[in-house]
């Protein structure tokens, strides 16, 4: 479990699968996924069983004020590498709750995961592949300090090193680290 910036990231358990599948299959979320294929319960259960023992990826449920609002994951960029061995990781995120999509709290889970990747796992860089029509995600990642590596067809490959990350996020980290109760 990771905790900070007003959110909690907890491991996914089997009771979450129905909710996660509804989120993932919703038009709002799936339109920006690389695959728009609808996920069946059987496919998802197989995926869930796989990630339980797969050391190359980790998935969390994002909770804000004790409510699940989305999901975030990290994956090793090199086949066969464990998270603890990889030099580069890919971060995947979606905020399913409309109230918090586009809100600054949407940065909180990513800040928490990025801190974990750079400070605890010791990765050199984070990478992401984003559809060029997903302006919200491109803008979001730009604000985290990501820089364009290459553009291929309708996909942008972007990369973030720790120095750029720390520089880009110092203000938002301060705002999200203040006391949470007046």
């Amino acid at each position, binding site marked *: 479990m990771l905790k900070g910036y*007003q959110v909690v990231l907890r491991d996914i358990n089997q009771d979450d699968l129905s909710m996660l599948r509804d989120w993932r299959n919703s038009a709002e979320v799936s339109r920006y996924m690389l695959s728009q294929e609808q996920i069946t319960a059987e496919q998802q259960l197989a995926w869930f069983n796989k990630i339980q023992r797969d050391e190359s990826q980790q998935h969390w449920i994002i909770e804000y004020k004790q409510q699940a609002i989305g999901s975030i994951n990290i994956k090793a960029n090199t086949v066969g590498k464990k998270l603890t061995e990889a030099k580069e990781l890919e971060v995947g995120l979606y905020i399913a709750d409309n109230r918090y999509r*586009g809100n600054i709290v949407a940065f909180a889970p990513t800040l928490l995961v990025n801190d974990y990747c750079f400070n605890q796992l010791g990765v050199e860089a984070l990478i992401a592949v984003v559809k060029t029509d997903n302006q919200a995600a491109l803008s979001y990642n730009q604000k985290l300090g990501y820089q364009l590596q290459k553009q291929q067809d309708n996909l942008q490959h972007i990369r973030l090193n720790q120095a750029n990350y720390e520089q880009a996020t110092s203000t938002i980290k301060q705002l999200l680290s203040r*006391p*949470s*109760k007046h």
Partner: protein
Amino acid sequence: MSNKHKLYQAFATGLGIELDSVKDELAYNSIPQWDSTAHMILIAEIENQFDVMLDTDDIIDLSSVQKAQSILGKYDVSFN
């Protein structure tokens, strides 16, 4: 200067928009200028104008000009 005018001025400065464009109904993400970066600048402007320091919950909840008034009410800033 009334508190309402100070608040409107803070929004105009923080979001980089004309004072005439600020109204109570103006909401987060309803105009391109009010994105997450502008939101942080706006928070700083409001804090300077009213000499307050907002809690993180309030920074997250500050989603419209109207909402800003109810939040600032908790910090003893009156808009009556």
